[in-house]
């Protein structure tokens, strides 16, 4: 399988402060992360808040540039500090954000939301853009009559579908999903995850899936990378990582997951009873 994404030693530093009286300090948000990802696979990046997940996502989607390290997408080395971001690069990477209420422009109709990437990056005629947008709208499970509506008329799940449609309308080779379901309720989460899985099959999309929800990761990921304080502490296939976590942080992370199966509830109640009688 072709390697879509290859990162070696990605580093991102932020300089903070730097007032009149003292130099600022440097925060290392991402400290040398390396990984590679094959076409059609899903890499899940797991970690707590502040572990550098979202910073990594912003580097991968070419929103921010890396401080050091090399990023290859489709075998091409990309350094936006030198070349800027071209339309060809836009076509390769797209992103879906966490908050479906903030990621759509409230004054932009859904149709315009979907046609904007085509308008800006291709020289497609208007009718063709419209057809593509309508096609994409139905692909993500919405109806053609939603084309002329504004975002406030949609639910969270529907908005996330729109955001997904916008992201894949350019047929990117890589789609970065920054906690795409954590703002949605459980039943809608399942629908969106199924939609993502279907789209991956249909278009051969490669996902980088950022999440803190391990049950979601277990469902969708092929490979998992655990991040802690800006470092990738453990990388492996999903089965290996979930059955046999090696790094202490990974173990701690899995142990912190609340469990809701009958056995663990019984065990917890038993512990409580033991504590009460003691």
């Amino acid at each position, binding site marked *: 399988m072709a390697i879509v994404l290859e990162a070696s030693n990605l580093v991102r530093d932020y300089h903070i402060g730097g007032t009149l009286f003292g130099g600022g300090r440097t925060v290392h948000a991402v400290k040398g992360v390396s990984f590679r990802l094959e076409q059609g696979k899903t890499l899940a990046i797991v970690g707590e808040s502040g572990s550098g997940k979202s910073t990594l996502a912003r580097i991968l989607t070419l*929103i921010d540039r890396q401080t050091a390290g090399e990023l290859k997408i489709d075998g091409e080395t990309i350094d936006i500090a030198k070349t800027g971001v071209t339309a060809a690069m836009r076509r390769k990477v797209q992103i879906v954000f966490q908050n479906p209420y903030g990621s759509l422009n409230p004054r932009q109709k859904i149709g315009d939301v979907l046609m904007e990437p085509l308008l*800006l990056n291709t020289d497609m005629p208007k009718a063709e853009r419209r057809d593509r947008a309508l096609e994409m709208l139905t692909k993500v499970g919405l109806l053609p*009559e939603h084309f002329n509506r504004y975002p406030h008329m949609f639910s969270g799940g529907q908005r996330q579908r729109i955001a997904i449609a916008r992201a894949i309308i350019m047929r990117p080779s890589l789609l970065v999903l920054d906690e795409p379901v954590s703002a949605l309720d459980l039943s809608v989460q399942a629908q969106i995850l199924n939609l993502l899985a279907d789209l991956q099959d249909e278009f051969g999309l490669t996902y980088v899936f950022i999440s803190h929800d391990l049950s979601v990761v277990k469902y969708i990921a092929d490979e998992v990378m655990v991040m802690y304080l800006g470092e990738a502490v453990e990388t492996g296939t999903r089965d290996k990582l979930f059955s046999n976590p090696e790094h202490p942080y990974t173990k701690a992370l899995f142990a912190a997951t609340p469990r809701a199966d009958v056995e663990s509830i019984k065990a917890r109640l038993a512990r409580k009873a033991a504590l009460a009688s003691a």
Partner: protein
Amino acid sequence: MATEIIAAPTAPTRFSGLREFWYYFSMNRGAVIGLVVFVLLILVAIFAPLIAPFPADQQFRDFIRMAPPFAGGTQPQFLLGTDEVGRDILSRLIYGARYSLFIGFFVVTAALFTGVTLGLLAGYFRGWVDALIMRVMDIILAFPSLLLALVLVAILGPGLFNAMLAIALVLQPHFARLTRAAVLSEKSREYVTSAKVAGAGNLRLMFITILPNCLGPLIVQATLSFSNAILEAAALGFLGMGAQPPTPEWGTMLARAREFITSAWWIVTMPGLAILITVLAINLIGDGLRDALDPKLKRS
């Protein structure tokens, strides 16, 4: 096929927004009264030659300083009396409405255009652009506005057009500040990042993505500035720096009538009342707009 399906729902969605706006606007009775008065004023200004009983500068030398009929005047054709050179005050006020409204529109357009552009640049690019623009705005705001306008007119030379330019310059920092603040809060929203990832350039991000989302407070500020502009133009006219006689501009009429304030009160009262009513009506509309456009004040 698809085109037929999607053509239909456009109209109801657009109008439902308008209808909702009108619902909240019409809850405010003062705003509706203001709107009615303002629309009447616009009609009066447009059809001035048809409505006014006499031309604005026609003198009736036999009836100088004639009191209005309701105050003991003997000439019922001069509804609001005549001024110090025998011109019909009502006609002059009607023609003066054209000047006042034109001043309002011109000043607000000019101030809105430059202020929004500067605020957008400052808020979007931050850094030294922001510092430079906002410090200049602070300097303009540090002067009492009328004084600054007076100085500008003194430099440019008295006249209605120069007065309007000066007022626009004085009012423009308010728009710049408001726009900058709105842009700062909108710029960090995810839809802006999304548009950036979709490939939108700086100009598109500023004017098409961000600006439409900052319009609410700007509309309110524009209406309030409209009345401010009329007031300041009248003040400049009163000080002899605005429109020059015999232009029937309300402020200029006031200035000429000052010496008759004890002997012929109607000459000075009528233009003053005209300014008062216009400014009050526009301010009421502005308040209504603010309530209707601010989601926090909406009763659901």
